[in-house]
């Protein structure tokens, strides 16, 4: 790790923390969402600098899409999306602050108290190949489980979020064609 990397790591680390703190300080929901995006994108940058370019860039890619979708929901559900009216949406701030401060102190103490072992082995020539091989060989079970979890999430989330079923679309006898949909759609189903 040379000087450039260290400087970049420091800058990204400070930005990630600052973005994280701003999430709970700012009023405007749009700004909150994009503060979180800055924080997570900087985390992705840190991961890239640590020799995992694939995971780092994919994290950035995913976070951008996720945060934009998040912004849409924020604006849809929050009472004060632009932060133009001052209002507080907090509860038990003191307790939460105490819990997280104690946890942070404990973690920091642990980090500096543990005698970390030295580096075992050398980094592979291409960390992306290492990850791909692991997911398709040794960690295949992990990959299968993650895939099933994602599939069930897609189905579960769609079922929870939609209010209309096939009887709403196709009528009581499921024979109405074309279906009655609020939005037309492109392939004429």
């Amino acid at each position, binding site marked *: 790790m040379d000087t450039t990397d260290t400087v970049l790591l420091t800058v990204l680390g400070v930005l990630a923390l600052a973005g994280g703190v701003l999430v709970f300080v700012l009023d405007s929901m749009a700004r909150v969402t994009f503060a*979180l995006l800055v924080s997570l994108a900087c985390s992705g940058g840190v991961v890239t600098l640590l020799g995992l370019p694939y995971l780092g860039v994919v994290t950035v890619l995913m976070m951008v899409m996720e945060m934009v979708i998040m912004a849409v929901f924020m604006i849809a559900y929050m009472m004060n999306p632009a932060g133009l009216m001052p209002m507080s949406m907090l509860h038990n701030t003191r307790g939460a602050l105490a819990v997280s401060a104690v946890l942070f102190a404990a973690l920091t103490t642990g980090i500096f108290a543990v005698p970390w072992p030295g580096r075992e082995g050398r980094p*592979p020539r291409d960390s992306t190949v290492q*990850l791909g091989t692991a997911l398709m060989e040794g960690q295949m079970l992990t990959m299968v489980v*993650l895939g099933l979890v994602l599939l069930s999430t897609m189905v579960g989330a769609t079922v929870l979020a939609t209010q209309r079923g096939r009887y709403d679309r196709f009528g009581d006898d499921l024979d109405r064609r074309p279906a009655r949909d609020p939005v037309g759609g492109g392939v004429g189903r």
Partner: protein
Amino acid sequence: MTFELLLVLAAGLFCTGLFGALSQQSIVMIMMGIELMIGGIIVAAAAFWHFLAPAAASGQVVVVAAVVAMAVEMAMGFAVTTALYRSRRVDTADLARDLRG
């Protein structure tokens, strides 16, 4: 020293997220706190991979699992919020007490 400082960064992100998840009322804001906590886990896993065991892929697999956890948390969170809001116009955790023991 870089290793320890990176872990402190991860701990900082995790605890900031925890504070948010505990103190915010709005379900969407709670989810942002959880995202931040998982972001901390990603940083920690990458640091462990780089500084302790770069020859094994386990650190990378933890990052993948964390990223998947983020996606699942977002999708299910918004689905539950949408279902709640649709049936009762509720968008804060304090008003959704069905599972309170």
